[in-house]
């Protein structure tokens, strides 16, 4: 184990100041992309995707390529050494000799910790099962910062699968460190925010929240509406999935009382939670959000590689 190497497995490992710095760098990259195009010349990012996630992988690869670096890796476990029975610890130690930094996605929760304990190079957790996905949260924070020009004084509506939706849990955790944040939790009873998130994050930090199963009830108060997808793989029972998957579909009509400067977000890919007629509404920011994901990952790679 190399103690000096900095990894990112969980959003809480970053202080508010560090997040501010990452956002500042990302904003600077957006403003002056040329300044950064050779920063990672000669460096290699390994994308180790034990579970496929094309979008996240491409976002990391784009980030490294835009910094002038190179990428290598695999996109699913059965095309990798795992299929031959190699342990994660071994894979990580081998790749440490091939690359300078790793972005890893794994279907097992806690895999990043195992990897970090064995790695000589920085590891970025690109998602571990239903557990953590810190670069999604950083993407969300950059989007809010750019579109609302602030990370405090916000009423945030979270809609859809609040039970299994890890992006929601870590967004709540991250936002609870800023001042005057209120949450409107919109979900069917079956997909409510788990008790431990309410107790250990919201109530512990004295954050106001309201639970509702009606997406329109508080629409007029929202500064941000964060939509999520109901993911099939999180259900043990097919019937529950089918019953709940179309519970919330955001369309133009449901937005009629919304603020003019509402910011509509979604971690993507969407299935049908947001009707395509919302896409050309200027308040829809989800495609921009995906684009911002590249810039915040660029900022993170620079930070972990200690490139100035």
């Amino acid at each position, binding site marked *: 184990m190399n103690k000096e190497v900095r990894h990112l497995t969980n959003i809480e490992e970053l202080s508010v100041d560090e997040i501010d710095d990452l956002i500042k760098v990302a904003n600077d990259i957006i403003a002056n992309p040329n300044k950064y195009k050779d920063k990672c010349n000669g460096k290699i990012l390994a994308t180790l995707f034990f579970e496929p996630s094309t979008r996240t992988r491409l976002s990391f690869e784009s980030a490294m390529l835009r910094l002038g670096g190179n990428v290598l890796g695999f996109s699913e476990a059965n095309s990798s050494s795992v299929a031959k029975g190699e*342990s*994660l*610890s071994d894979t990580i130690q081998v790749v440490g000799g091939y690359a300078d930094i790793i972005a890893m996605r*794994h*279907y*097992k*929760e*806690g*895999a990043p*910790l*195992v990897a970090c304990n064995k790695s000589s190079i920085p590891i970025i957790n690109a998602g*571990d*099962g*239903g*557990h953590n996905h810190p670069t999604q949260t950083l993407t969300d924070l950059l989007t809010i910062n750019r579109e609302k020009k602030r990370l405090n004084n916000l009423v945030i509506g979270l809609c859809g699968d609040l039970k299994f939706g890890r992006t929601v849990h870590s967004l709540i955790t991250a936002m609870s460190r800023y001042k005057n944040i209120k949450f409107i939790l919109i979900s069917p009873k079956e997909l409510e925010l788990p008790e*431990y998130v309410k107790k250990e994050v919201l109530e512990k930090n004295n954050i106001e929240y309201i639970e509702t199963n009606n997406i329109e009830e508080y629409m007029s108060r929202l500064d941000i509406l964060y939509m999520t997808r109901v993911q099939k793989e999180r259900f043990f029972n097919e019937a529950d999935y089918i019953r709940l998957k179309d519970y919330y579909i955001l369309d133009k009509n449901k937005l009629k009382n919304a603020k003019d400067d509402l910011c509509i977000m979604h971690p993507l890919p969407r299935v049908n939670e947001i009707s395509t007629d919302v896409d050309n509404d200027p308040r829809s920011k989800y495609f921009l959000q995906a684009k911002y994901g590249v810039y915040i990952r660029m900022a993170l790679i620079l930070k972990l590689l200690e490139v100035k």
Partner: protein
Amino acid sequence: MNIDTIKNGYVIDHITSGNAMKIYELLELGKLDCQVAIITNAKSKKSGTKDIIKVGELINLDMDKLAYIDSNITINVVKNDKIIEKKKLTLPEKLVNVCMCNNPRCITSTEKELDQVFILTDKERNIYRCIYCETKLNKN
């Protein structure tokens, strides 16, 4: 009921009724060469009934495992027919290979050489979480 007093060993007292067999199994007391007596549903002033275990030798007792099962236990250390020490247990900060993570999606289910490690995240409510997946340890 009368069970031989012990010369050297432990009287593990104030075990919550029903926990004696769990202790017997987790501490593998069945593998010892010395005498082990298990008394269940003994009368207790404090809590109605309790279990007691007597171990007839001063073996190395795993206090962390005992505390994990039942932190109310008192351990009387007996030497030459006398109780020389009464030990109270405290919840260990960390449990290593005492129990398994029961989250089927946890990395410990596939990465076989890993230690099973839990840390005490909430002292008041006696909550342990897996260091890998952070799933709450379910003691039953």
